């Protein structure tokens, strides 16, 4: 084998793309060709460097987003007999009534808590970048008034840039059957969804838990019940809660 052929085979040999007989032929040719041996070693070295690169697995958030889409598609397509459908609608109607009663009697006083699922859903809507916020502003004087007329209370709004959690904006979402204010903060490349509503109960310090790869914090401070969800680390979530409490206290 002359050297140009040999050179042309180096890559294919490295990549395991030669047939057994071609490989053997190449190896024999290699002994007589120091340049090609050098080339082969260089190629191996580069391949080794690239293969040393750590693989980044799909983030939990992405996995959850895809799962959610699949569930939604599978759920929306579930065939339903007409009679069955009617029963569901009737049940749904009575459920709406029940939720409304529960809201007047319960949620307003902070006794009925939202399900974790709902809070994670809120975060999902916030985390999918297309439509994160309804009002995009880092200025609390823009975000706070925006809620007026959309919900029946005025949430405390603070930009926490100095603590590493810049305010991105706000939106309204339904949690526990009630329209609530959701403030969206950013931490590095992660978003934090903070759902909050008034509560007359006593302050409770933030409790941070992990669920399905999400950090969830809940606490009560200054007459508001706070629920934060994000894909940041639990320690960062605690720092976020502390920064928010501090900003609210400084404002009082």
């Amino acid at each position, binding site marked *: 084998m002359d050297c140009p052929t040999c050179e042309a085979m180096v*890559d*294919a040999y490295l*990549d*395991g*793309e030669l047939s057994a007989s071609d490989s053997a032929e190449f190896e024999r040719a290699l002994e007589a060709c120091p340049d090609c041996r*050098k*080339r082969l*070693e*260089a*190629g191996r*070295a*580069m*391949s080794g*460097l*690239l*293969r*040393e*690169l*750590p*693989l*980044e*697995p*799909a*983030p939990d*958030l*992405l*996995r959850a*987003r*895809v799962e959610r*889409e*699949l569930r939604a*598609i*599978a759920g929306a*397509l*579930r065939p339903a007999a007409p009679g069955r459908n009617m029963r569901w609608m009737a049940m749904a109607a009575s459920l709406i009534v029940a939720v409304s009663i529960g809201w007047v009697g319960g949620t307003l006083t902070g006794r009925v808590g939202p399900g974790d699922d709902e809070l994670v859903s809120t975060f999902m809507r916030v985390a*999918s*970048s297309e439509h994160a916020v309804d009002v995009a502003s880092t200025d609390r004087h823009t975000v706070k008034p925006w809620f007026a007329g959309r919900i029946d209370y005025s949430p405390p709004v603070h930009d926490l840039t100095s603590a590493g959690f810049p305010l991105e904006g706000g939106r309204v979402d339904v949690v526990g059957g009630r329209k609530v204010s959701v403030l969206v903060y950013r931490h*590095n*490349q992660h978003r934090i969804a903070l759902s909050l509503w008034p509560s007359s109960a006593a302050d409770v310090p933030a409790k941070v838990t992990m669920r399905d790869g999400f950090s969830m914090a809940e606490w009560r401070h200054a007459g508001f019940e706070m629920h934060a969800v994000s894909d940041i*680390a639990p320690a960062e979530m605690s720092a976020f809660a502390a920064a928010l409490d501090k900003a609210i206290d400084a404002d009082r």
Partner: protein
Amino acid sequence: MSETPKPDGATVERFRAVMLPHLDAVYGFARWLTRDPVVAQDVAQEAMLRALRYFHAFRGGEPKPWLLRIVRNTWTDMRAKSGANDRPLEEIEDRAAEGPDPEQSALAGDRRRHVAAALAALPAEAREILVLREVEDCSYKHIAAVLDLPIGTVMSRLARAREKLAVELRGRLGRSEHGLPDM
């Protein structure tokens, strides 16, 4: 696309079993194409949804190259739609050189950071083929399927990409120390 049959519950289940195990590869490829972890997630998600819509056309065979081809097309379309070009290289290099942030502790190690920066700095054509070969471990045949190229073109393009990477690496790493090509 509106002509394609809608996926039913059984299709979604089959998709989940066949395609979802390759989500890491989908994200990994998108990560190198976009060079942005946030955009990569959007591309990966959109690609998975497209893959589900096209799933009726999947006739067995290797799921990974089939998916990676959709990832690449999705990224091409999204970029064309937003009118955004590749971001300037300086920015990429700066970011890659920022050092391991706590969430990417996997990217620890000076050498690996330099290698990642060198790969990120390559033009898209060279970068994608190297990632398919060395990171995703695709055969020439699979690369040909992802990039929609004849095998011969895959080989010549791969050789050119390796030369380009060697140049990038030599600028970042000592050549003798790492036995890098002295071409």
